[in-house]
């Protein structure tokens, strides 16, 4: 990327500076919440003794979070899950959501209302033209121990609609792949897609949906085989995510599955990036002119993404440079002071809509890529 492309306007620079101030302020508030005896969680209060510094005194800005050791996702395996519940939230109903879990003990994260808040914030980014208020939704993806179903359902309800849900169990999919039961895999996928087609063609006025890229692809294909399309069954807006999302796939989806660019009457689609730890990062609007480049921006200050050097995880790379994705979660329910994602990408500059760093070209971290099964559902 050239220096010109990297340059940001004075207005954006000012917004970015303001956003940073808000992030610093938010960081202080969250650190105090999690490390105060009255409000903190048993996990962090116990961890405090091992840190070698006092978060209540020594964290004065977001950058000071680098004093913490990297968050180890192994800490999330096994119980008791209650140790993550901040005392300040004692007595409230708690959800537990899991990731992974194909083998061994899955990682689990407690949630009270974060999944609702994350998706309410996400809702604010969705254009009403393509995600009409009051429209009904389809959620086609994993439910079970994952938060996605409840989160998307809340999004639909928050926008005044009702959510129809079709479940796909990714742990079973991974098992089918490992066993080489490809016929079963196809049948299972068909089983899910058939249900989605049935719901979409049953007169429920579904206009918005979530699907993982692979399921969206299969759904588009299944509808086409029945002589119809996502557009013809009434879908106006789609948000997709959950697995790797590439410009090439986006181009294919826009050009060959969604009826062309949205300006020419095609179905609107926006990629998202997220996980149970962080929440949901939105994409900068995608276009053919921009090479279908996908740039994600975390919902700051509740979550932050950085692109850091492969050699020094506390060193943010230059704009346009490649590094590993580092996540921070800074909510009153959950505190993650720097978690190394299993992804890498390029650092993106702030812009007017999201005046903070983003990340583009997200793909499996090259050192882990061969050992990771991605995009299975």
């Amino acid at each position, binding site marked *: 990327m050239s220096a010109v492309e990297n340059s940001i306007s004075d207005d954006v620079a000012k917004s970015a500076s303001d956003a940073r101030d808000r992030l610093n302020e938010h960081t202080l508030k969250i650190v105090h919440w999690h490390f105060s005896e009255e409000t903190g969680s048993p996990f962090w209060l116990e961890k405090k003794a091992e840190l070698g510094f006092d978060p209540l005194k020594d964290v004065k800005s977001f950058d000071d979070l680098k004093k913490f050791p990297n968050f180890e996702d192994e800490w999330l395996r096994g119980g008791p899950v209650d140790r993550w519940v901040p005392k300040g939230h004692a007595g409230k109903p708690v959800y537990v959501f899991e990731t992974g879990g194909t083998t061994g003990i899955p990682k689990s994260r407690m949630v009270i209302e974060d999944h609702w808040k994350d998706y309410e914030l996400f809702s604010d980014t969705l254009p009403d033209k393509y995600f009409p208020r009051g429209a009904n939704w389809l959620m086609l993806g994993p439910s079970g121990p994952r938060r996605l179903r409840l989160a998307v359902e809340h999004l639909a309800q928050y926008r005044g609609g009702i959510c129809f849900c079709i479940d796909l169990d990714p742990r079973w999919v991974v098992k089918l792949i490992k066993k*080489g039961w*490809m016929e079963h895999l*196809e049948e299972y996928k068909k089983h899910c897609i058939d249900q989605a087609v049935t719901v979409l063609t049953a007169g429920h006025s579904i206009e918005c949906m979530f699907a993982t890229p*692979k399921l969206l*692809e299969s759904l588009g*294909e299944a509808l*086409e085989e029945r002589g119809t399309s996502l557009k013809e069954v009434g879908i106006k807006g789609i948000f997709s995510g959950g697995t790797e999302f*590439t*410009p*090439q*796939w986006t*181009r*294919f*989806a826009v050009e*060959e*599955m969604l009826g062309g660019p949205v300006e020419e009457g095609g179905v609107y689609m926006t990629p998202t990036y997220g996980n149970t730890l962080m929440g949901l990062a939105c994409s900068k609007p995608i276009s053919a002119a921009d*090479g*279908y480049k996908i740039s994600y921006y975390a919902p700051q200050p509740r979550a932050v993404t950085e692109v850091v050097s492969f050699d020094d995880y506390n060193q943010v790379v230059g704009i346009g440079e490649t590094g590993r994705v580092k996540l921070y979660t800074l909510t009153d329910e959950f505190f993650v002071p720097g978690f190394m994602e299993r992804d890498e990408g390029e650092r993106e500059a702030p812009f007017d809509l999201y005046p903070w760093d983003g990340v583009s070209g997200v793909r499996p971290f090259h050192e882990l890529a061969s050992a990771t099964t991605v*995009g299975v559902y």
Partner: protein
Amino acid sequence: MITLQPLRWGKPYESMEIKDIVHFDTGEPIAKFGSVGGGIVGRDMKQAHKAREALLKYSPAELIEMSKKAADLFENAELPVGDTTQSVDEFVHQQSASTGLPEHMCRSNLKKNSFVLSHMDEILNCLTRGLDLNILSKGYGEEGRGVIVSYQAQTPILGAILPNNSPGVHTLWLPAIPLQIGLALKPGSQEPWTPYRMVSAFIQAGVPAEAFGLYPGGHDAGGAIMTKTPRSMIFGSAQTVAQHAGNPKVQAHGPGWSKILIGDDIVDDWELYLDMMVESVLSNSGRSCINCSGIWASRHTREIAQAIAQRIGPVDVLPPTDESAQLAAFTVPAMATGTHAMVQQDLAEQGVTDMTAEYGDKLIEREHCAYLRPMVVHADSPERGVAMKEYMFPFVSVVECPQAEMLRRIGPTLVGTVLTRDPALIAAAGASVDIDRVNIGPIATNRLNWLQPHEGNIIDFLYRSRAYQTADMPVAAGA
């Protein structure tokens, strides 16, 4: 630097996902390779009928003539490939650079593919047992016996998931075009060269471009070809073959476990067959399913193993441009180290002897690749695990086994060369369902007669023989 892009029924597609193809030894990029995902492949497979329709505009005879012209172009011409043109020498350099095969082996595979294509009329004549190819084209016809014969094409296209590093296997999909069946090929990530050059040669020879799809990509691209094509072939491991066993839609090609069986009647003269045995083990760097991985005899097995070891044990790594290079590199070093570790386990078993131990280290590790030097092991019984092993380098186990037990213990054997004059052994070998291609007499396992079917007859795979009866329609009253 040459860039290879996907081809969607004859139309190049500018992929946004471009990867480097790197030199096996230096790690330097030598080409760029665009890929597609399963979604694009799936969409194109819905238009597969158009590929066949384009081919049906030409008669089989015309397509055979085009194939012969394509053979000449493939072997000799400068052809448009990717975003540039490619000479034969460039093809050989590029293929060697990405696969680790010595250049003379690349040239040999080039000639083999060209040979098969240029003899397509004879090959199809033999595989169809002289059937008029217009009957395949039309779907039915009369052969002169007063009975209609009908062969129904089971697919408009043949899908193929091609291997990374075996340029010799491409002969298997070549008959599709003169049979008026289109091709959806997923080229191997390190060996896209043959399919790209071959498709270019076909198109230059006049075959309609709409008949060809080239879909480089990951597992989902291959998976889409397999699931959405009524007939496809795949090249892979024993696990891949097992996964598709019994699936009539898939012809799976994997390890061959090809063997040489020596009858008691001639085993005392084993030295007469030494050259043939060495060729069977060492040719093409031992990388093919038709390379010999087991030599079975009831006696003299140690001497046989010793003699082969003396011939191939000293073979060492040479530059790929050296005309006497016999070893191909493992472009993924971990494959070599893993294989080496498995061989060490084999050798740990009682009754197994490394006859090439005196010829130095077998595992040669380089920065970006690795080599395994030839190995001959002796197994004092077919009970030894190594008797059933096949590896991707010149490796053979010489197994001591009574003749009476051989055929029931050899297991799956793609090519079985049986050295004997004993009519009973010849008859039993011919009847053994474990042996796919049977050679009676001193024929090296790697020497295939292309006029005969290989791992199933492709005609039977692509066409179904069925009944087709006709009767005159009655004339309507008042007509």
